[in-house]
């Protein structure tokens, strides 16, 4: 935890006050990466640990069913804030776990006792479903875990992009950069 005072050491190439676009982009791409780009590696790793703990914790609880941009669109808006990981999991869910209904042609979760044709994705009777759909409290909690992960990553993105909140108990301002000879 050697970078605990990183925001104060801007002159040594450490985080600066003001808007840091690269940190925002990095934080949006992977949880914690924004802080790592800014030089706060330990903080970035801890952000990553917390956000991914919640996101994958949600999947451990409710299965892949909790990440679903079609059936739970509103929840997915929050989950999407985790970044490309959420979109990747959703893509896998939609394309490799859902089955195509033989009558309507729509993608849906497989029913119990129904399998998935690996070539066409069409539901076939008699197999076992690629995944079990979560229900009740377990589904609610798993979805909530993953959505909270996205919300917290939004806080981390803002903190990475606008590093003004920590400076040994006071706020960093652009004038701190000027005093240390760095650009705001």
């Amino acid at each position, binding site marked *: 935890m050697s970078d605990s005072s990183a925001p104060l050491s801007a002159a040594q190439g450490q985080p600066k006050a003001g808007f840091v676009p690269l940190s925002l982009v990095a934080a949006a791409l992977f949880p914690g990466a924004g802080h790592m780009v800014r030089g706060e590696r330990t903080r970035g790793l801890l952000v990553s640990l*917390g956000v991914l703990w919640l996101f994958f914790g949600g999947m*451990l609880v409710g299965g892949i069913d909790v990440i679903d941009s079609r059936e739970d669109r509103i929840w997915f808006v929050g989950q999407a804030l985790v970044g490309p990981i959420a979109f990747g999991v959703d893509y896998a869910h939609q394309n490799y776990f859902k089955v195509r209904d033989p009558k309507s042609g729509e993608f849906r979760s497989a029913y119990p006792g129904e399998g998935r044709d690996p070539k066409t994705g069409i539901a076939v009777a008699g197999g076992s479903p690629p995944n079990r759909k979560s229900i009740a409290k*377990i589904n609610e909690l798993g979805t909530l875990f993953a959505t909270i992960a996205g919300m917290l990553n939004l806080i981390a993105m803002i903190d990475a992009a606008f590093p003004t909140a*920590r400076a040994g108990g006071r706020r960093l301002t652009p004038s701190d950069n000027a005093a240390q000879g760095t650009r705001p």
Partner: protein
Amino acid sequence: MSPCNMCLTSLLAYTPLIDPIDLHKHWYLLLIPMALGIALAYKAVRVDDLRDYPRQVAVMTVQVVVAMISLGAASYFFVQYLVPLIVAKG
């Protein structure tokens, strides 16, 4: 089927990250890992000195769990005791 066999069956059917976990009877225990996860991510952003991080995470986790239990108890008290009193007086 005995309860032990049922546990074993549900455990064998569980594929992590793909299938839901069979915790329907003890779902409230999931409050603890959720509170811990929230504290892990939030305190990573919030604390000034990361040497305080483990203690602050522990404190926030306990605070969230105690607050949720208290809210649950308060809701129970309101619905089970206060509402019947209000209805009886009305």
